């Protein structure tokens, strides 16, 4: 996921691409009769766009409605014809390619999935391989693999799209786009139409899938949080189709190029940028715990106003207020506001765990979900300061490790995209 610079070949390249509607000579009618974003006549949807989407990375196009992001996306597979400029995919000018061949080589995922309602899930997924002449049996085998790979029960393969939830349909949409194993994927707000909980699941699984597959992805969204979470690089477009800034998510949050980008990127930029913070290892305090089912005497014996309860596997479950315990500790006694940071999480997750904890001690769990220790906001802040100092000095923090004592665990915030899980 980390932004690798320089030597990569450029899979999708826009060079001076403009799309004008209405007064343009020719080429303003689209195959499906639509006009993409910004419907009024004689308007510029995309203005002299030059952009590169590097191989194997996710490039997110983000901006308010009318910024031409969908138009930009659809010009890649020639659903929309550019007024001027060239778009090349893997070094080939798309205008010179056979349009069906071009489209079949590009996976396409849209909002509401756009599944064929008259075909079963497996038949939907088989569509492009069948169009490319792959045999029925082979296409079916491959489709079943993909259905499982995107996290669907194989039993759903025989169902029709209407029998699936929105999130499941979207997974089928992704599987269908991947079916012919295209190197390039276009995704137009694929996760916008599902509820926030499902959206986050889909986003996380999408990142997992991408880390395995390494597709070149152009991803459109109006949601800056989604852009920052998913993108290796983010292109912010302003109304009228002008590229305002192209940068890594961390750079975008830390250094918006103008007021428009700053406004669009939104508030809490400093805090959100911590999602990408490459933190040094921190020492965690050992936290005394009680298990679910412990008596009120067990809780009071610890002698703290808030006591952390853990499950049978040592996984943090939530905080209990000692004074409020008058019987054995059950789930309904637990305070549910606290988040749990992961040892492989970000500085943001660490700080959030500390801030959201009623005891002020942020809960940190290992990748196996078991409690590792706790940390206070006061202990996280020096790490943030140290990072800033290191950035100013133009180098990555070397990780001046505090002496780890025997009863202390260490935590390293690395993987930028792992979000904190809510404490149960």
């Amino acid at each position, binding site marked *: 996921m980390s932004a690798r610079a320089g030597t990569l070949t450029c899979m999708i390249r826009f060079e001076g691409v403009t799309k004008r509607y209405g007064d343009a000579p020719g080429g303003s009618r689209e195959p499906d009769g639509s006009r993409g974003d910004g419907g009024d006549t004689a308007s510029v949807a995309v203005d002299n766009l030059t952009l590169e989407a590097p191989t194997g990375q996710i490039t997110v196009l983000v901006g308010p409605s009318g910024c031409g992001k969908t138009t930009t996306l659809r010009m890649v597979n020639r659903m929309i014809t550019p007024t001027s400029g060239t778009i090349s995919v893997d070094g080939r000018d798309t205008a010179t390619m056979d349009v069906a061949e071009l489209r079949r080589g590009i996976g396409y995922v849209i909002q509401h999935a756009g599944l064929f*309602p008259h075909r079963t899930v497996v038949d939907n997924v088989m569509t492009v391989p069948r*169009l490319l002449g792959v045999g029925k049996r082979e296409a079916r085998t491959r489709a079943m693999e993909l259905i499982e790979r995107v996290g669907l029960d194989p039993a759903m393969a025989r169902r029709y799209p*209407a029998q699936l939830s929105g999130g499941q349909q979207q997974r089928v949409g992704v599987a269908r786009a991947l079916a012919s194993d295209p190197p390039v994927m276009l995704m137009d707000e694929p996760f916008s139409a599902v509820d926030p909980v499902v959206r986050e699941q889909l986003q996380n699984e999408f990142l997992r899938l991408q880390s395995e597959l390494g597709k070149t992805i152009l991803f459109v969204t109006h949601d800056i949080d989604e852009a920052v979470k998913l993108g290796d690089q983010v292109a912010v477009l302003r109304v009228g189709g002008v590229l305002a800034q192209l940068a890594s998510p961390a750079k975008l949050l830390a250094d918006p190029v103008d007021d428009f980008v700053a406004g669009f990127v939104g508030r809490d930029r400093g805090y959100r940028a911590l999602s990408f913070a490459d933190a040094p290892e921190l020492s965690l305090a050992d936290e005394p715990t009680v298990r679910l089912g412990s008596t009120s005497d067990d809780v009071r014996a610890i002698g703290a106003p808030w006591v952390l309860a853990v499950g049978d596997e040592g996984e943090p479950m939530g905080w209990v207020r000692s004074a409020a315990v008058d019987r054995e500790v059950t789930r309904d006694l637990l305070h549910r506001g606290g988040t749990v940071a992961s040892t492989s999480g970000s500085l943001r997750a660490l700080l959030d765990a500390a801030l959201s904890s009623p005891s002020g001690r942020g809960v940190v769990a290992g990748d196996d979900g078991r409690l590792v220790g706790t940390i206070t906001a006061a202990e996280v802040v020096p790490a943030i300061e140290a990072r800033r100092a290191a950035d100013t000095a133009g180098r990555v923090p070397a990780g001046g490790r505090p002496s780890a004592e025997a009863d202390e665990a260490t935590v390293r915030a690395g993987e930028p995209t792992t979000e904190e899980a809510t404490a149960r």
Partner: protein
Amino acid sequence: MSWALDHLGDILFRAGQHAWLAGLPLVLGLLIAMPLGWLANRTPWLRASLLTTTGLLYTIPSLALFILLPSILGTKILDPFNVIVAMTIYTVALLTRTVADGLSSVDPSTRQAAIAMGYGGFARFRAVDLPLAVPVIAAGLRVAAVSNVSIVSVATLIGVSQLGDLLVDGYNRVIWGELLTGIVACVLLALVLDLVIQAGTRALTPWVRAQGGRP
């Protein structure tokens, strides 16, 4: 009832004729209406004029058409072919709009996905648009079937034999049994055609049942 039993062979023969004269035009009309509806749906400037023109065909009185056609086609006045042609015209009049509406009822995101997957014009029509238009087209076909069964009975006046004969003869000779038999037989025939169309639609659209009957 006794009249019907006494003339069973005669009734069945005429019912067969009637089914043939109403049913074959249904198939022919659908085959003609499909390309017309497709054209109307994909060519916006043609849509209004094409649908209005075909729709107007339905307003031509059937008797006039039965009498006019022989002079246009060069057929004999008693030739059942005239009736077949006339009924096909009425079917086209009813179904062209239905086909166009059915094709335009396809969800834009579904159509967009089909285009993005590299489905070209005719392939998309055959594999995506047409199957999805089946529920709407079938509804139009059911209306056309009933309409055809009803109009065909007029052909008695130009001497083409079918169930209408019972109506005219029963009326002229005041044979209530015959008149009633004619009416019941027409209704039953319309019902049978309707059931055939419904069964065909059901077989073609298993996906509609999967979404609880919503097309």
